[in-house]
């Protein structure tokens, strides 16, 4: 991946294409690259939908190679939702294909003149940009169907739906999966709105004629990959739980822990959670779609296969297996216990191009405001359709939970830096609350993932029972996560890497064998730190200070049943997370 594709959407005479060497960005990938480019090239005070913002789409360092699990794509920009730096991450096929075509990143710059919508085609012969007016107003599914008809079935697509065209702050960017369906989303932070502001409806990627990226040391790479795959397969989480039940395996467990945010974070338990559990969902999928329906990989090279396929009662495809976050956001958080309704909402989110977490949290805030009743699935579906149709109410809802709360006068809005909290109540698991508060991304559950244990000193040197221990843990986890995000690896490698030192070593060996390096765990830590430093500095310059590294006040006052606890980590301790 030796080139960066820059497209100036606002050039005189139409979008101007320039493929340049990676230069100073060499050796970087994924979140490392998106954050480096955004922090260096985007003025922190620019308007997120203005000409100075940039949308950076970057495969990971190992994407396009035969390394298992390496197909994640990073999308970076200044976020219209948080006002700070954003990296959103998606699975699907585009990352592998862009890697094989040799692109370390696509950078969309400037603003198109007028309201023209464009299609970008990238293949081995180069790049072509054409008018996409015929796609205007289409959902992601119809858009991809048209691209399939035009370019065949071996392509992948990166696209926006109506939400992105409307530049709504809850808009996502869709990536197609192995079945060429727009089901994998760079969801968080309104990245779809930025793509919409750049006037790009769809990027079609065709890597026909390209080969897998070759490692510097093929023998060592092969050996490391073998060890890597063995480690992932033997671990009970990555080898059994996720393939069998998907991420929704968490519903019963988080609910049992009393940390399952229910009805807009009012309670920590949802009484009907086993109607929407991963176990129930897997059984439903297999009953309707046959054995294996609940096991599916989102990109070629994925061996964990945590996704699945959801069919309606008539046995027809409806949507990909809804993730834990989606089932929670549209389910328990809204008081809804109907899996079919939740699956329909997932389909609508994917089609309109909306972040399911933000959308679900927003609907729950709207329910608290009385716009609909908690538990009313039909009303929730109607509200999502209002977003897709661009009604005034829909535009409010599509702008996220913070805006919706403000419009309807709701105090209890579960956001940090304007972004909605995901499916774990921070009063139940305070460590995740530290991460929600302090990550550069806004409330985000993946920014502080577990990657390594003693090897990276993730446990830290401070007594873990003291508040400082939680701070140190969150800091080290954020560092480790940032490093993993740079490789293109799926974050679900975390558990086997955490438990099995030889699997973590295999990951480092993969990188070293591919690039001809001699990285150690300390180097990986340094990589993570440098990414976070870039992001943190950008946010400070954008006006996000320590006062934004806080949970909403009501989390400190309102006790969460069943444990009846509040968030207890002190502000001065939160301010220590980035002390290094």
């Amino acid at each position, binding site marked *: 991946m030796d080139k960066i594709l820059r497209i100036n959407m606002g050039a005189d005479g139409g979008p101007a294409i320039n493929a340049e060497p990676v230069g100073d960005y060499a050796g970087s990938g994924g979140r490392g690259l998106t954050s480096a480019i955004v922090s260096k090239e985007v003025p922190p005070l620019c308007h997120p939908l203005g000409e100075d913002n940039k949308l950076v789409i970057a495969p990971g360092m190992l994407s396009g190679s035969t390394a298992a699990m390496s197909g994640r794509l990073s999308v970076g920009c200044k976020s219209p939702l948080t006002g700070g730096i954003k990296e959103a991450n998606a699975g699907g096929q585009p990352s592998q294909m862009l890697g094989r075509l040799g692109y370390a990143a696509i950078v969309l710059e400037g603003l198109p003149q007028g309201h023209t919508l464009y299609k970008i085609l990238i293949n081995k012969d180069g790049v072509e940009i054409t008018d996409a007016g015929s796609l205007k107003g289409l959902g992601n599914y119809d858009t991809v169907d048209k691209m399939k008809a035009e370019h065949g079935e071996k392509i992948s697509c990166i696209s926006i739906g109506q939400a992105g065209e409307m530049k709504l702050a809850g808009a996502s960017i869709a990536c197609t999966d192995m079945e060429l369906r727009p089901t994998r989303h760079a969801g968080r932070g309104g990245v779809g709105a930025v793509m919409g502001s750049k006037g790009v409806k769809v990027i079609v990627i065709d890597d026909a004629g390209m080969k897998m990226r070759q490692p510097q040391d093929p023998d060592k790479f092969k050996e490391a990959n073998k060890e890597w795959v063995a480690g992932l397969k033997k671990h009970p989480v*990555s080898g059994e739980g996720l393939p069998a039940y998907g991420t929704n395996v*968490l519903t019963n467990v988080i609910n049992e*822990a009393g940390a399952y945010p229910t009805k807009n974070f009012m309670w920590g338990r949802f009484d009907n959670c086993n109607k929407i559990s991963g176990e129930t969902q897997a059984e439903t999928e297999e009953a309707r779609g046959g054995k294996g329906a609940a096991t599916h990989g989102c990109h070629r090279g994925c061996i964990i296969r945590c996704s699945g396929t959801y069919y309606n009662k008539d046995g027809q495809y409806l949507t990909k297996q809804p993730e834990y976050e989606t089932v929670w956001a549209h389910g328990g958080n809204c008081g809804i216990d109907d899996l079919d309704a939740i699956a329909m909402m997932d389909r609508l989110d994917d089609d309109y191009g909306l972040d399911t977490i933000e959308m679900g949290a927003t609907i729950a805030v709207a329910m608290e405001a009385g716009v609909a009743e908690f538990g009313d699935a039909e009303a929730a579906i109607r509200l999502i359709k209002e977003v897709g149709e661009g009604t005034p109410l829909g535009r409010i809802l599509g702008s996220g939970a913070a805006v919706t709360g403000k419009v309807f006068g709701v105090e209890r809005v579960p956001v940090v830096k304007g972004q909605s909290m995901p499916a774990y109540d921070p009063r139940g698991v305070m*460590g995740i609350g530290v991460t929600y508060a302090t990550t550069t991304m806004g409330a985000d559950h993946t920014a502080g993932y577990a990657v390594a244990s003693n090897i990276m000193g993730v446990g830290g040197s401070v007594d873990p*029972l003291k508040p400082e221990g939680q701070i140190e843990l969150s800091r080290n986890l954020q560092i480790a996560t940032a490093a993993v995000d740079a490789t293109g690896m799926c974050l679900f490698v975390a558990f086997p890497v955490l438990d099995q030192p030889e699997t973590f070593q295999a990951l480092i060996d993969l990188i070293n064998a591919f690039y001809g390096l001699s990285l150690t765990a300390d180097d990986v830590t340094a990589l993570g730190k440098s990414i976070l430093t870039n992001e943190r500095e950008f946010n400070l310059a954008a006006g996000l200070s320590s006062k934004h590294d806080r949970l909403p006040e009501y989390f400190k006052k309102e006790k969460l049943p*069943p444990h009846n606890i509040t968030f207890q980590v002190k502000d001065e301790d939160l301010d220590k997370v980035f002390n290094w």
Partner: protein
Amino acid sequence: MGSPNAGLPILHTLIEIEYRIMKLSIVITAELLPRFFRLLEQGFFVSTTTGCSIKDLLCKQLSIDEEYLDKRIQTLFLDGKPVDKVEKAYLHNDATLALSGAMPGLVGATLRKGGTFASMRNTISYKVETSVNGDGEARVKLKLFNMVLKELGPVFLESGIWIQSHNFSDFISRNLEDLKPACDSVDLNDQKMDVAALAGMTWDDTELFLKVTTEVSS
């Protein structure tokens, strides 16, 4: 690692409901057995003594292999509190014990017994505050999730479980159409009946003793 419970044959499981202590026996095809797992997710009752440790309940009383407990039951909750040491977590009357495999994600890792990130949920972790008197009887609700449900579910259904009638009533009404062709026989307190009749019955807020038998697929 040993099988979860090597002692019990897994060929037949009868749903038995005793009338008055309702005892229902159903013989079904193996393919439909997992439907009954929902009842185990919701919880079933076992009797033990107060002060019994989780380890003693599972291994000594319920004959779960110690290695299985150690390696497969990676996440446990006692009254919603994550448990780190099963030999030092004690049961009381009306306790709820939930068993799960290892969970993904950071929060999943945080909830794991004795895990590296346990401190991140310190405020909800199980802590032994006082010693528990070991003289009395205790009725404990046991819930099984994910891989543990899949692996131990058939064993418990075969042995028989106590469940709340309203859960069974709900279960029957939701699954009746699929159960009809799959049921070989239904016995209610030693009286044969049609499975459809179960849906028409009025279930008191009582408990059932339930066993499930599957026909061996030939």
